[in-house]
């Protein structure tokens, strides 16, 4: 059955809550309102207010209480209404949740999911457009995923709910209603960890995730049509832990790597991917590792400025041409 990215997330929540009584949803306006983006629509009617909990605007508490419940065997799926607000809960995520198991010598686990609608391109300006994944991808104890398709959105969320560790799930707002996909009937999961090769090629590799997967695929099609370039596109899907084997395999195969993400250039996960390749596949490279990312700027409200800051298909096409000619 065809489902949007948003519907896929909603289905995963319904199915996981039906599967396991310990799963509950908590966040700001997730119940009666069905969430700011309607991602949690219908859950309250289906599962009642004990399991679909509207909270006040208290991000620290949402995450902290989620941790407390998780330690006692519950499986909270917590929503940050906008991924930007995750900074309010930063301490609970990186200090309490991420370290919990290690801190106690393995006595307890912290099986929670933190959903964070992120991403720009919706004119949300500075506090409703961020891609904060790189704040978390250097914290042992966390897992971080960023699905780009409805299938992955559903499958990764199910895996996250069933995982015994804290998982931050970045869902891209721009994808909610803009992409659709036929989803199989019945239960399926997408494992946390492995990247997915979206397009096979031989001349150049794009490594990307989340919102920029689709722009990367578009760019790959454009350059193939205009000059026959065969671009390979690797979708990371999971950002912590990174699929090092898949990253190195595509780098070794094509010898030219373009990293694309919507997060800012400096300190973005692309830097880490580039370092992995430089350390372990240097001999295979036929050109510099290039990156197309958001500029190191705040996400402006002004639509032309926002457009200027963000990666897009044209910028990716341009970078492919330059790198291919190197």
């Amino acid at each position: 059955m065809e489902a949007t990215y948003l519907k896929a997330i909603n289905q995963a929540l319904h199915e996981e809550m039906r599967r396991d009584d310990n799963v509950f949803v908590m966040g700001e306006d997730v119940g009666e309102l069905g969430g700011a983006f309607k991602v949690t629509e219908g859950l309250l009617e289906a599962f009642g207010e004990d399991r679909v909990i509207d909270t006040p605007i208290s991000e620290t508490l949402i995450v902290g209480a989620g941790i407390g419940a998780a330690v006692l065997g519950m499986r909270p799926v917590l929503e940050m209404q906008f991924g930007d607000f995750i900074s309010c809960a930063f301490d609970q995520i990186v200090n309490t949740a991420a370290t919990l198991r290690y801190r106690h010598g393995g006595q307890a686990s912290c099986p929670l999911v933190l959903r964070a609608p992120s991403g720009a391109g919706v004119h949300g300006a500075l506090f409703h457009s961020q891609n904060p994944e790189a704040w978390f991808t250097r914290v042992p104890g966390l897992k971080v995923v960023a699905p780009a398709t409805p299938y992955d959105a559903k499958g990764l969320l199910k895996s996250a709910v069933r995982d015994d560790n804290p998982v931050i799930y970045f869902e891209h707002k721009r994808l909610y209603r803009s992409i659709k996909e036929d989803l199989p009937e019945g239960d399926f999961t997408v494992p946390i960890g492995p990247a997915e090769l979206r397009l096979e090629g031989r001349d150049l590799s794009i490594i990307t995730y989340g919102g920029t997967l689709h722009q990367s695929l578009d760019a790959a099609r454009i350059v193939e049509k205009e000059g026959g370039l065969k671009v390979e596109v690797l979708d990371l899907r999971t950002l912590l832990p990174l699929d090092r084997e898949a990253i190195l395999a595509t780098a070794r195969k094509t010898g030219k790597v373009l990293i694309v993400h919507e997060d800012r250039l400096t300190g973005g996960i692309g830097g880490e991917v580039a370092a992995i390749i430089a350390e372990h596949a240097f001999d295979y490279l036929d050109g510099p590792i290039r990156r197309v990312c958001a500029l190191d700027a705040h996400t402006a409200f002004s639509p032309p400025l926002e457009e200027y800051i963000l990666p897009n298909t044209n910028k990716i096409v341009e970078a492919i041409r330059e790198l291919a000619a190197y």
Partner: protein
Amino acid sequence: MALERDKHAAERARLTLGEGELGELYRRMVLIRRFEDKVAEMYSRGKITGFCHLYAGEEGVAVGAIYALYDKDYVVSTYREHGHCLAKGASARSVMAELFGKVTGLSRGHGGSMHLFDQTVRFMGGYAIVGGGLPLAVGLGLSCQYKEEPEVVCCFFGDGALPQGAFHESLNIASLWKLPVIFICENNFYGMGTMVQNAVSQEELYHFAESYKMPGVRVDGQDVLEVYAAVTEAATRAREGDGPSLIEAVTYRYRGHSMSDPAEYRSKREERIWQERDPIKNLRRRMMQANPGAEARLETIDREVSEVIDDAVRFADESPEPGLEELGKYVYSSEQE
């Protein structure tokens, strides 16, 4: 709201508790005091390193409060948590070994002084970020409520946690949702070196309860029985579904904030006054007044506790350190352990 300070509560508690129970309160307080004194000694001898915050002087709060709970109730604490952890029933051996950084410690030496945790006695952790444990306590309470279990959560924090946002978010929701949480503020007057009146606009901390529509009371933390009585009442309320309470236990830490703090911001006179109000001496006096014959029993307890502490130090000292191969373990729950 109810839960006004009742000056006769402690005396009534003494009358309701048998001599054996009073002896147990005494034993737990002496255990913590001797433990902490020994930790200071081991610290100065270089056996314990890092940041270490001692509880000596505040024993009446942890012991009185935790004695009012059932074994299955939960406790959440702070970075000054050796006392709470011991009072909840963790073994002196495993706590001392953790402070020594040994693999036989509660957290296998990975956590140290500020991150004790003992699932078996439902001591749900010391939190080394001030105020960091409060949201977690709310979550424990939420889980108890959801599963319709009768347990309550006792959450300790210092006066230094009140200016934190987590305090507000936690008390607000605990009250809104009538969660079974007892918030116990150990007001020892100093957040490190900052006096409470310079940190909190309302320095009578129990008054915060009014804003959250929960009962609030100030008790003498140096009187273990007064703490016991207040927490007994709060635990009953929580267990019956009537929601959280805030208890401000006024107390005093005998040492500085940590082992590296000589506490020069306090006068010797102030310290002397508080030493005279010592919670262990208080209970001993009370028990002796009721029964002069109790002395022999108390001395036996003193002796037994000393043996427990000596044994804990020996155990910690002789235990091995964690091997380097331990580092990757326990980070994720799927790891082979």
